[in-house]
Structures are given as structure tokens and as C-alpha cells.
């Protein structure tokens, strides 16, 4: 089994989507939505990252499951690092970080 040849058209479409999402995220950041600004910005960034991973990096056409396991595992471990550390910071009380 050899590599999948992704048609050029797919790359162009993905690129166009990426540019569009970038413009959306840049524009939305100027609209004050409170907490939602962060949520939307990160959601769009995740979608963009997924597009790059799936198409540019050929994850969608990957023959081996282990590559998926590696990618998902990598992000899951990042989540563990962030999440478990935040169990400390989010429960320390209001001034848990107070400095000089």
C-alpha cells in the first residue's frame, strides 16, 4: 500500500477555509463578547488545527491507526498536564498566586 495522493483542489479548499477562519477569528476578537471571546477564538483555532492535521498533514489518509493514537495521545497528555495542574490553581482560593 502506498501513499494517498491528495488532489490539489483539496489543498486549495482547505487553505481558503483556513484564511476565512482566520478573518472570522480576527474580526470576532474586536466584538466584545466577554468570556465567549476566548471560547470562540479557541474553538476556531482548534478547527483550523484540525484542518491542517487532517489534510495538510494527511492524517485523514493515514493507513495506520497508531498515527491517530499518537496524535490523540499527544493532545490528551497536553490536556492532562493542563487539567490536572488547574485542579490546584482553580481551587487555591482567590489569592493563591499572589506575588510580591
Amino acid at each position, binding site marked *: 500500500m502506498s501513499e494517498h495522493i491528495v488532489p490539489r483542489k483539496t489543498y486549495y479548499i482547505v487553505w481558503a477555509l483556513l484564511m476565512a477562519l482566520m478573518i472570522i477569528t480576527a474580526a470576532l476578537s474586536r466584538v466584545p463578547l466577554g468570556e465567549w471571546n476566548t471560547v470562540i477564538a479557541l474553538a476556531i483555532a482548534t478547527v483550523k488545527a484540525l484542518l491542517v492535521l487532517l489534510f495538510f498533514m494527511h492524517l485523514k489518509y493515514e493507513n495506520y491507526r497508531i498515527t491517530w493514537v499518537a496524535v490523540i495521545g499527544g493532545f490528551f497528555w497536553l490536556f492532562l498536564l493542563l487539567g490536572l495542574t488547574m485542579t490546584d490553581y482553580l481551587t487555591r*482560593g*482567590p*489569592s*493563591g*498566586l*499572589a*506575588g*510580591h
Partner: protein
Amino acid sequence: MGESLPLWPARASSMAAQTDALVLFLVAVTGFFTLVIFILIFSFAMKYRKEKHPVAADILGSNVLEVTWSIIPFGIFMMMFVWGAIVYMQEVRPPANAMEIFVVGKQWMWKFQHQEGQREINQLHVPLGRDVMLTMISQDVIHDVFIPAFRVKRDVLPGRYTTLWFRAIKPGRYHLFCSQYCGTMHSGMIGEVVVMEPAAYQAWLAGGNAEGSLASTGQKLFQQLGCATCHRFDTQGRGPNLVGVYGKPVLLDDGRTVTADDNYIRESVLTPGAKVVAGFKPIMPSFNGTVNEEQLLSLVAYVKSISQPEQRQPASNRPAVPAPAPATPKGR
């Protein structure tokens, strides 16, 4: 102290017996299982020597056994966890009416400040049978207060107050160690906790060279630094009125709510812009570099004292506290 070969530390606090009971439980359980493993390995090694047992049995494994020796240890572990957690929760939650002593650690000495004003270095006098809470901060690196006879320990951080509490139950002198590596003289950063009968403690307090209570020191500082200019005891000040604030929730200008605890007071003096009270402008200057840790602690003690109900006031000059604001605010 003094024995040549002690095998068990003195039990001098209310926490000690609880910790020891948990440890003995752990010793019994783990000792039993360790012994079982050792005996099994030893007896298998003897009984099934090649000379005596030339052909090995063909055994692949047993799922029943695997599940059994996963679940039973897990159950035992959960008992250990719950017991340990119960002890820990007592250790980290100081009783509400504990008497507070401030601790400042620096390379390589301990400074203790009693509310009544006494200060001591590398020696801590505490009364017997009374809940004592240490509020601790470091001037430089991370230190750690460790009193083995009390079975208590807590890191002393720079930049943030941590607390530790105990109730001494046996008079005597006990080791106090710094147990977080802090540089050259780490092993010299040791002290002594002197547990005294309450009467003797009162006598010791009275015999000291204190210059008034910590709260009154803080009050003087509060005046000197010009804090009282804005933090007036009415609603007209440019800064929030601090009477009754301690321990209460405070609404901030970004919508968050914080509890006005020691750390919040400290942060507000040093980085006032970080958590501004709702309805006030961020105009307060930072006192970073102006006040040291000991002065900060006295300010905390003062703010705390003006929030306490009358009957629990120390014998300080409470009525003098709401000093009249100067007619023309001093600029800083």
C-alpha cells in the same frame, strides 16, 4: 531529646497520635503483605529447586486470581487513602479560634511574631493545650516549617502566606527543622519549639520586651504610610473602608468576588492594581519595596483587628483606631 537511640518520635501534639495510628495501621498491613511475598518467594525457591522439581508445571495464569489480587489491594488502598485524607483535612484546616503567630523565614533563620508583640528568633514559645496557627511567609527562597514531635509540616513560600496549625499536648522542648532545601546553611536553619503551661506562657509573654501588640504596630504603620488618607472609616474615602472587611467576600471591578484573607490584603498592598474593589478607581500606588514582610504582617494583623467583634479584641486601644482623616490628603 537526649536519648542515644530513639526509635519513635515524641508525641507532643493532638495530631501526633492520629498520624501514628495511621502509620501503625500501614505498618501492619504492608508488613503482613511484604512478609507473605518474602515467605512465598523463599519457600518456592526452596521447594521447587530444579533438583527437587525437574519439570515445571505448565500454568498460563488465572483471570480469577488476577482480578482478586487487583481488587483486594485496591480496597485496602482506598482505606489508606480515606484515612490519610481524614487526617490531612484536619491538618490543613485550622480551628476558627486558633491563636495566630506570624512566621517569617529567611536564609537561614526563623523569625516569630506573637500577636501581643513579642518577637523571637529560632525559638517559638507556645502554650500547652491551645490551638496555635502559624501564618508563614518567606523573604527569599522556599523554606519549610517541620516540627517532628507535632507531625506537622508546611512549606513557607515567598510571595504567599501558608498556614499550619497544631495543639501541643506535652510540655517540653522540641526540634523545629527547615525541611525544604534552602541553600548553604539549610541544616543550620533549625529552631526549638518550647511548649509551656498556659500560666508560664502568660508570664513569658508579659516578661518580654514587646512594644505593644502587632495590631497596634500595624496601626501606626497604617498612619505613617498614609493609608488612612484614602481608607477612611466612612464611605467618603477614595479607597474602600476596611472596617469589617476581613474574611468577607469582596466584589471586584471585573465582576469576580474574592475573600479578603491575609493573602488578599498582602497582594492589595503590593500590587493594588491586580484586584481592584468594585466602585473604586485603580489609583492606589504600589508599596512594593516600601514595606517588608514583617511590616506587611503587622498591617494584616491591623486590618484583621478592625474586623473582629468587640469582645474578642486584644487589650489594645481599639477606640483610637478610626483616626480622623487629615483635612488635606497627603499626596504620595
